[in-house]
């Protein structure tokens, strides 16, 4: 279960896009170095256990930042966030994968990055073998030789290995081939049956409407609609300026 109340998030960003000290020194006195930029404002959201929850919204509306807060990567400026259970974030494709290491070595490394203990790491390795659909010879190969789809398979297998209570997915299912996508959806359904919560950020309204129980639409750092994916989809299309599909 996820409970978000009055959540606001600020990012400290370089005010003038300084990338070098020279620029800063040249402008010293006239320009402040960092600026507080509000990314999320007053987000309220309740996601129930065992639910597949979709989040749609235009680019820059704060979807990814919301997932980062749920994953414990970004600290809120104000408000409260409660996430019950273990969290497995899949916020980008192939995160933490070291190109020079093999698939299995990477699985072990990622398990450490996710804070797994020895037993959980073993389960990760087993799951990678059984679920990723990668042959043993591929798993012994350096990840730099993997195709995008293979990387996606490995990443998904690692992230979902330990039956997380909460799975956060940011737009990463789109890259695999159709067979892999079906496998991912099956795995999501399986996790849901166990009582896991899945939060899915997607630009594909079709995907959200197909697999999500409920959805939210975000705009300018806040949630503007929550409800049945079809209703939320109407609102999203309104924002995009697209007339609802006939």
């Amino acid at each position, binding site marked *: 279960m996820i409970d978000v109340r009055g959540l606001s998030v600020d990012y400290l960003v370089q005010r003038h896009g300084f990338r070098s000290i020279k620029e800063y020194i040249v402008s010293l006195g006239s320009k402040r170095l960092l600026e507080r930029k509000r990314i999320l404002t007053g987000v309220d959201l309740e996601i129930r256990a065992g639910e597949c929850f979709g989040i749609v919204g235009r680019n820059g509306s704060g979807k990814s930042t919301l997932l980062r807060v749920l994953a414990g*990567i970004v*600290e809120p400026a104000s408000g409260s966030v409660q996430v019950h259970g273990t969290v497995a974030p899949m916020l980008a494709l192939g995160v933490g994968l070291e190109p020079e290491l093999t698939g299995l070595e990477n699985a072990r490394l990622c398990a450490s990055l996710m804070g797994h203990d020895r037993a959980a790491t073993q389960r990760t390795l087993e799951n990678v073998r059984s679920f990723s659909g990668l042959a043993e010879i591929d798993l012994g190969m350096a990840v730099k030789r993997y195709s995008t789809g293979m990387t996606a398979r490995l990443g998904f297998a690692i992230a979902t290995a330990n039956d997380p209570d909460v799975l956060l997915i940011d737009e990463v299912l789109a890259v695999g081939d159709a067979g892999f996508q079906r496998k991912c959806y099956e795995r999501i359904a399986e996790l849901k049956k166990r009582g896991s919560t899945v939060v899915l950020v997607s630009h594909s309204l079709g995907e959200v409407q197909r697999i999500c129980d409920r959805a939210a639409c975000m705009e300018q750092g806040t949630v503007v609609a929550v409800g049945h994916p079809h209703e939320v989809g109407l609102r999203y299309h309104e924002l995009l300026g697209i007339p609802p599909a006939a």
Partner: protein
Amino acid sequence: MPSGLSAPHAATTRLRRAHGPLLLALAWKNVRLRYKSSLLGFAWTLLNPLIFLLIFLFIFRHAFPQVPNYPVFALSGLIFWAFFATVSGHILGALVENAGVLKSLAVPPLAFPLAQLFAGLFNLLLSFVPFAFIMAFFGWRPALVHLLVLPVTALLATFLFGIGLGLCALNVYFRDIGLLWGALLPAFFYLTPIAYPPDLVPARLQWIAALNPLYHFIGLVRTVLVDGVVPGSSEWITAVWIAALALVIGLFLHHALRRGYIANY
């Protein structure tokens, strides 16, 4: 952490994770990756100081007759200089290079620079064995007092981590910190008595030489390894102060700047 992030979240994703295995896994990865695509592998840890030693022997062989055993003198300084120069660069880049992970997984950022330090220390300690043989070849004889090089290494590592962490934190905001450090390192190399004996600096300018923090660490190394005596308490105290100060500054910069990391990696 603001009070907003309430207990259940903290209990599940933060407190339960043990950082020890994570650090170990990252450090081991660094050790492996460092030399994965190079033929000579670990040998590079040795080769860097040895190449410098050859150059020094060629140029300075007769320059410093007051140094009784110049090869051992030079090599003892070079080993620790190479450690400092290499690992400071690795720590400096640790956050920026792992931006992808830091943006996507709830890993404490400090783990990355720390893992680089551990990887560097591992390499250094491993290299002590072959270096001992090389120094023995030049007439150096091991003794119990030489074990004091371990606390000296610990002090240098603390200093190195403090400096590296501060630079690393700043580097998230200003990428030219890395370039600047690359340009400053050779200057430090010549300012520090590595190739030359410290008394080469005129007495009235000694206080300037002593402003260089590395001067004191290299001095300790030489007292232990070359002179083979236990350093005096003032030598230890100076090094402890410098190391502690560097660590405090590094940790301060890290904590002051960490809230903005996420938007600037």
